[in-house]
């Protein structure tokens, strides 16, 4: 690794700076992605049959006649002040539209994470313990199967059997503010299970690979040849070195969770950010798409940055420099 002679704090600071730079760059890409392409927002609103005058008027009204760079900085400056603009289709303030929905999405995603992360690590360890045995093979086959399944297949399968035929849980997950937490949890049970199933296998398989990688190190053999008990070998020698790769695995999958939530929200008609995004893509409501896209991308980038920083911190070479 090209770590140079930097100290731990310098490296963390560098990674933070890189993350911020990346966020800035992403805002440029998202802005450019919607603004530079043929057919501008005015055209989208008024449709192909609009008269040139109407188009020109609307463009002036929306400030589209100004150069793109000026509009970008204006947009960015407003976002930094918490003003995400107004929706084209409804004329509502985007920040208020997003507020509750962001909470709902984070609630669903974090609950799915709370279930899937410990479960995946536990199952990954089981797979390592029984490696090359029946349990491991079974886990391996299930993994290949579940990572190949589209989210909607799992989701509708659950709805059909658990909600419609068995009538155990509601098929759509309507939640509202002030809903008692128990009811809220019942409402999100199915989307939560779907998300867990979607990320679980992959996370488990990567955890297994990460632990096996550590277990094949020479220092594990040293520990075995010292006559240590299997328990001590795993907890004292394998785990401290497996933490960093496992954190990476977890965060990669959490980042996916944030994205997978989009589809799951549509399946279960869950009032979150994903549904907001998809609805407004269909409406071609560009300001809303930009704002929600930026928030999704930001969460994704922050998670990845967190993983990198944890990896830096857990590296003994950096914690204890020469």
């Amino acid at each position, binding site marked *: 690794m090209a770590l140079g002679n930097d100290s731990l704090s310098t490296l963390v600071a560098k990674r933070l700076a890189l993350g911020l730079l990346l966020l800035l760059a992403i805002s440029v890409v998202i802005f450019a992605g919607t603004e530079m392409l043929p057919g501008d927002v005015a055209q989208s609103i008024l449709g192909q049959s609009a008269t040139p005058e109407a188009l020109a008027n609307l463009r002036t009204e929306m400030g589209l006649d100004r150069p793109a760079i000026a509009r970008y900085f204006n947009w960015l400056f407003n976002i930094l002040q918490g003003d995400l603009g107004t929706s084209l289709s409804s004329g509502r303030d985007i920040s208020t539209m997003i507020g509750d929905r962001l909470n709902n999405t984070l609630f669903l995603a974090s609950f799915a994470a709370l279930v899937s992360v410990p479960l995946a690590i536990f199952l990954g360890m089981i797979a390592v313990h029984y490696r090359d045995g029946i349990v491991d093979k079974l886990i391996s086959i299930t993994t290949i199967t579940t990572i190949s399944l589209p989210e909607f297949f799992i989701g509708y399968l659950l709805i059909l059997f658990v909600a419609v035929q068995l009538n155990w849980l509601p098929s759509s997950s309507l939640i509202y503010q002030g809903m008692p937490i128990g009811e809220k949890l019942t409402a999100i049970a199915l989307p939560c299970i779907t998300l867990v199933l979607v990320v679980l296998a992959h996370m488990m398989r990567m955890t297994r690979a990460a632990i096996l990688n550590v277990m094949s190190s*020479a*220092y594990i053999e*040293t520990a*075995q*040849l*010292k006559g240590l008990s299997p328990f001590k070998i795993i907890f004292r*020698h394998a785990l401290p070195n497996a933490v960093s790769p496992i954190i990476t695995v977890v965060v990669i999958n959490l980042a996916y969770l944030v994205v997978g939530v989009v589809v799951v929200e549509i399946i279960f008609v869950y009032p979150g950010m994903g549904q907001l995004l998809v609805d407004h893509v269909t409406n071609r409501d560009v300001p809303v798409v930009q704002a929600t896209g930026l928030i999704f991308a930001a969460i994704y980038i922050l998670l990845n940055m967190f993983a990198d920083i944890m990896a830096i911190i857990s590296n003994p070479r950096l914690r*204890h420099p020469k």
Partner: protein
Amino acid sequence: MSNQPFLQVKGLCISAQVSTTGSKKKNITLVKDVSFDLERGKVLGLIGESGAGKSTIGLVAMAYARSGCKISGGQVLVDGVDILKHSHKQIRNVRGARVAYVAQSAAAAFNPAHRLGDQVIEAALEHKLMSREDALAYADQLYAKLGLPDPENFGQRYPHQVSGGQLQRAMTVMALCAKPDLIVFDEPTTALDVTTQIEVLATIKQAINDTGTAALYITHDLAVVAQIADDIMVLQQGEMIEYGSADHIINHPKESYTADLVSVRSHEKEEKPDPDSAAILSVSNIDAAYDGHNKILKDVSLHLHAGQTLSIVGESGSGKSTLARVITGLLPPMAGETIFDGETLPSKLKSRTKEQLRQLQMVYQMADVAMNPRHTIGQIIGRPIEFYFGVSGAEKRQKVIDLLDQIELGEKYIDRYPAELSGGQKQRVCIARALAAKPKLIICDEVTSALDPLVAEGILQLLSRLQEKHDIAYLFITHDLATVRAISDSIAVMYQGSLVRFGKKSEVLSPPFDDYTEMLLSSVPSMELGWLERTLASRKMQAADH
């Protein structure tokens, strides 16, 4: 104390399962019917080439088989009890407490996440042999005994904070700390530079003597084992070839294989006199750096005559391979020039003519990665013929066959792929590829260091014959002084990027020496008993004189 040997191995057989093509698995025998006894306080050396099964045997003393290996027969008696019949828990009580292990690569064998001290005392605490305080105090004593710097605080450090030689000694401390009856040393000095090796070897020997532990010392280097072992067993492909006292093996070997190992590279080539003509290669005042300012080479000048061999010798980090990169044009130097066959070579590879490139060929250390695995031997050797001389078709094929004959492989290899060849055969093909360009100079970068001694010997003899026949000059880069003696006409000694000594072989290898060359030369183990003690004693005397 009982009068039976501490360790008795009887009729040991070990097999391994290898998966061949498809899902079928095949059993191969790694170790076949090996027996030996080891008494308390004695040292047994296990010697053999790679694949001889010596590490596998060493680990069996701890009832340990690496994954894929299976102990298929025999007994391993520790204090008269067969540990192969032990339960897991009983085996654990042997490991680390009664029998300890020192691995080849200490850098990988220490856990990067824990302090050295905690790892050193771990076995003693696990087996409840000492209290933590006692163990730490004993470890401190051992650090001091093995010459580790700042022994009181050494255990506070992490593995990455100390050097390779120190780690290897710390690994020995780790094995000694629980006061075991037997230590298995698995190539403990192989990864070290020669000047570090002698120090580690001396401290290991000292520690064995002082603590009275028995040792199983595994190595491929007979000269090393001769310094430390009471008895030696020679292994070849899992079978015992010869087993006897060190004196018997070194001075009166019975088997021809053992005799070959003892006499390997003891011959020396006659040095050729310098001709009157100008040198084929001369580099002058070379400065070079990879990043533009940290100089890896400082003011290096040397020359080489046509048809002769110049060896550049030095330890890792001496800059010898960097010099090869400068000469080939891969690394343009910051200063200095390279004159080849009377003309100044452009410093950049891209500016050199095809003819200049043809005259100067290269052979690499790792023949495995020096050949494209997707090309046949015929394509590999044929390409330079086609590229430089525009020859193709049947004529090219005939030339390839000629070359295959010259490297003693023959026509049947022409359509094979590199993976189907042994290490020595691969290196021969690389030599043929260089030869195909009809060069005046071949740069040989550690061409024998990845090979077993007898195979390496064959390569060196081949190179000598080819030099006689085609009048090629060799620039031979190596860290191995035995190789240097065997093939050089002149020698350049490098140390930390500078040339410390350069001249004809007879001059470089005779006194008066500079300090570094003297240390380097005296550190090379010689195939005689008692060499280690004599060398250390004479160093001590010299230090006293100064």
